């Protein structure tokens, strides 16, 4: 009970340590979502919209990678960025950039898979009308992306949810360094083990509040779009 009260005080009084961790977490996860979206959305659209040998296998692979274990991704990125790894010379290990890379790898398959399914479903609806209107393939694609924008935004949101709640990968490649690579999830794990329940609960509440706020915003946006566009 006392820990809960202290947690609220940390949030309400604007505790600089807590908010620095929250800010870094948002920066890392939102950047990861941006990068994963830049790769995942076109990849999903391309797979939905084209046919090529091995397409089915690629779909299965991407769907399977939606459940990539974070610690395995963390391990792979760690090996790639460590001094003896192929990208070791870049000196990125134990930096926020390393955490962004790990999270982006983790969520790209989620965004790609959801985008593919969304666009494929809409394309099967639109196909005959588009062909009858003589729409070019590129214009078909842009129209599909536009008309599916709410669902695609939801795909990005699913990626953000996964990234923000993830702990294993960022712990391995970020190192949980105070004031530098400590995120909400790694801090919660650490503070809990130290017995600082107020900080752990404060960060937990902030994490849940952020996820709820983003989901609520998306729901409102989706409702407005549906009422206007059907």
């Amino acid at each position: 009970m006392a820990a809960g009260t202290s947690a609220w005080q940390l949030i309400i009084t604007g505790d600089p340590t807590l908010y620095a961790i929250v800010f870094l977490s948002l920066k890392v996860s939102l950047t990861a979502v941006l990068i994963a979206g830049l790769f995942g959305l076109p990849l999903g659209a391309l797979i939905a919209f084209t046919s090529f040998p091995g397409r089915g296998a690629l779909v299965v692979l991407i769907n399977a990678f939606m459940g990539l274990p974070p610690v395995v991704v963390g391990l792979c990125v760690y090996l790639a960025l460590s001094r003896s790894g192929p990208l070791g010379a870049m000196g990125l290990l134990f930096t926020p950039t390393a955490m962004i890379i790990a999270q982006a790898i983790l969520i790209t398959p989620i965004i790609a898979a959801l985008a593919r399914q969304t666009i494929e479903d809409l394309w099967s609806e639109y196909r005959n009308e588009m062909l009858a209107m003589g729409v070019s393939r590129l214009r078909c694609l842009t129209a599909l992306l536009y008309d599916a924008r709410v669902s695609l935004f939801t795909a990005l949101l699913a990626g953000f949810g996964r990234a923000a709640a993830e702990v294993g990968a960022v712990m391995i490649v970020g190192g949980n360094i105070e004031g530098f690579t400590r995120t909400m999830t790694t801090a919660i794990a650490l503070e809990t083990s130290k017995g600082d329940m107020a900080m752990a609960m404060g960060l937990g509440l902030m994490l849940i509040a952020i996820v709820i706020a983003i989901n609520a915003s998306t729901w409102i946006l989706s409702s407005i779009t549906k009422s206007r566009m059907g």
Partner: protein
Amino acid sequence: MAPIDNLPLVLSGVSYRVGDLTLLDEVSLTIKAGAPTAILGPNGAGKSSLLNIAMGLMQPTSGAISWGGRSDPAPLRRAMVFQSPVMLRRSVRGNILFALEQAGVARAERETRLQGLLARVGLVGLADRPARRLSGGERKRVALARALARDPDLLLLDEPTADLDPAATRALEEIIAGAAASGVKILMVSHDAAQVRRLAGEVHFLVKGRLYESAPTAKFFSDKASPLAQSFLRGDLITET
């Protein structure tokens, strides 16, 4: 826009098969400018397949098709309204503007054309409504407006008033008749003999993929029609030919 003539539409010995199933069997017909042409027949006659081939959306298994003497013109002034048209996830305005864009209408002219099309199909008051939330008859009107946005010389209609109530049917038929009066060649498929009688100038009677009769509407609905056509017009269920 450069004038593109889709007429005459000529089908020569067109067949369409899926596995062992023959949907169209050596169909030959010529569609010329003039009053609406109807492809009439019971369900399963192959009417929609014929229309899809006429639009260029499906390739015949054998036989040949040409539009204005050419075998592969881009469908620039050819338009089609499907039996169950799909509305884009946009407003009525958004749907028609998209069609205008695809028809190559200059951006500056689109709003004027949009208002004209909305008036033509009687949807002025519904321009900002989500197209997917309209009634079946209203959706058909949006689909007609999208098709007319292409300024077609050949308009293909697949069961244009299927599942609509009499008032909506009348409204659609008036729009179709208006389009035909303005010079648009209408090729429609229907299993509704009464509608064909009201709208069409000539009839092609199709049963189980085979063309059994082609005649002016007046002759087709007279006692000079073939026994099979007379049987269909009496309302008999045609199971054997």
